[in-house]
């Protein structure tokens, strides 16, 4: 017999289900519906087809598919959609989830294992969901002497900071959450917060392994921040702007990696160090200091830190693509939206359905997203690959690498960019 629930009774199970349903209905009707009414009262509703959209109209239109598309389009133009779904959190979390699965399978294949195998029948494709359920149902144990408010807040702030980083990455022309003129400086500012969060969580845990791991993380991120900043100066010199969308748009004929390969290599290495990935995973070196600054995190807190780490990985890969690989630029491969659907509607036998408001996405945006995702996936693959190939390096080697070799190469990169500019190869009068 199963040992999971030895005193299982069907009647009690049904009773608990009914209890839960009762409480959900009660809470929704007492709190949820009034809350929605209050929120709708204060939100400015958009004007669609010359009519002000009231909640009542929205409900009636949602029942009619031919009239619900304008509502969907109006929703997609809002900041809410951008933050939650497409260039923001949902999109990034989806890519992060894919990255975790691919990393586990690929690492297993590199080491002649099979990796996740049973969950979801096909090659363990639902393993991530299973892990999420496991993490959320595990008890969170906090050390007795820990500084509890900061210790609770650290994983949440880590994910939120990674999300703020994701917000700055342009995915397709016009599709970016925060299109700021000083986007690159904003990226540096956000990156500067990660060591602070790390050292906060390490200090608040009041334990030895997180403490050592936090200090290592501080050293590593601090010593690799300067080569990271200097290696991107070449791109800024050649484009003359700090706006990430404009930098991506400036590479319509060729990506900057052709002219600045040194900067791209330096940025890639510093990226590995900032992400704490092998060969630079000193802050969470499993075989030396248990799990480094993650040692005391348990249950969902650890899950949140993992989610934040992979969001950060996606954001760094996206930054590499935007700065060096041309962002969304690429040959047009997405076919145009068929004209006859716009003019005649969809004809299925005797039924003809007309949908005003199509197409939902324009061709430029779909094509840009496709190329951005393809390039980002390629960069993520190259970030994952060293984990199966390289050993971990010592901390003095890490510091001397960051402070002497990479900074020297970053200066070489700056002079390459200046030389290209003043020789007239690039810039005004040159190729661009």
């Amino acid at each position, binding site marked *: 017999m199963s040992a999971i629930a030895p005193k299982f009774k069907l009647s009690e199970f049904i009773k608990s289900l009914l209890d839960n349903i009762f409480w959900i209905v009660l809470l929704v009707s007492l709190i949820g519906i009034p809350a929605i009414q209050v929120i709708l009262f204060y939100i400015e509703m958009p004007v669609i087809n010359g009519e002000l959209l009231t909640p009542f109209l929205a409900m009636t239109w949602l029942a009619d598919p031919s009239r619900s598309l304008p509502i969907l389009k109006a929703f997609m133009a809002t900041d809410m959609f951008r933050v939650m779904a497409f260039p923001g959190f949902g999109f990034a979390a989806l890519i992060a989830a894919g990255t975790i699965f691919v990393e586990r399978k690929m690492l297993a294949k590199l080491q002649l294992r099979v990796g996740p195998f049973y969950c979801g029948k096909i090659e363990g494709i639902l393993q991530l969901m299973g892990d999420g359920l496991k993490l959320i149902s595990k008890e969170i144990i906090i*050390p007795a002497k820990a500084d509890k408010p900061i210790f609770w807040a650290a994983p949440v702030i880590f994910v939120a900071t990674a999300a703020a980083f994701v917000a700055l990455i342009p995915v397709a022309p016009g599709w970016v959450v925060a299109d700021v003129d000083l986007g690159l400086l904003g990226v540096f500012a956000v990156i500067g917060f990660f060591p602070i969060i790390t050292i906060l969580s390490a200090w608040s845990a009041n334990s*030895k392994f997180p403490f050592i791991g936090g200090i290592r993380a501080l050293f590593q991120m601090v010593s690799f921040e300067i080569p990271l900043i200097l290696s991107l100066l070449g791109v800024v010199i050649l484009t003359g702007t700090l706006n990430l969308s404009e930098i991506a748009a400036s590479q319509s004929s060729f990506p900057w990696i052709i002219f600045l390969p040194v900067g791209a290599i330096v940025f890639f290495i510093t990226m590995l160090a900032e992400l704490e990935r092998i060969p630079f995973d000193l802050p969470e070196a499993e075989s030396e200091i248990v799990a480094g600054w993650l040692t005391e995190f348990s249950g969902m807190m650890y899950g949140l830190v993992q989610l934040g780490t992979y969001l950060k990985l996606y954001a760094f890969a996206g930054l590499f693509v935007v700065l060096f690989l041309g962002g969304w630029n690429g040959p047009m491969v997405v076919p145009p939206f068929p004209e006859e659907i716009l003019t005649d509607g969809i004809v299925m036998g005797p039924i003809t359905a007309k949908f005003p408001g199509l197409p939902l996405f324009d061709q430029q945006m779909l094509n840009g997203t496709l190329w951005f995702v393809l390039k980002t996936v390629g960069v993520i693959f190259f970030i994952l690959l060293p984990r199966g190939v390289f050993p971990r390096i010592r901390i003095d080697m890490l510091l001397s690498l960051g*402070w002497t070799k990479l900074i020297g190469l970053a200066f070489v990169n700056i002079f390459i960019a200046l030389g290209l500019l003043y020789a007239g190869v690039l810039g005004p009068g040159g190729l661009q």
Partner: protein
Amino acid sequence: MFAFGIAAMAPALIISRMVSPRKRSNPVKFLPMECGQVPSGEGRTHFMMQYYPYILMFVVFDVMAIFLYAWGSALLELPKSATLPMMGFLAIMFGAMAFALYQSGRRRIW
């Protein structure tokens, strides 16, 4: 996006706290992790930071590296003669960094 991150992730911790079991507590369970041993001493000890000079160098050179962006983003509008003082700035920065690295390598004076 930062606010949305907090608003979306805090419920995950709250739900986890509601769903997860919290039973059978004993003082050993809430001790800090020390590989199964009973921990000895304080968690926040005096830890010798052998590479302290690098932190000092970061404080100076991070600001200098950010200053370069003000020049780099305006370079296309500047006259060519404005590059020469910037080369002097880079030389000073590079020389100072080399000297600081040399000093940080001399372990016995730290």
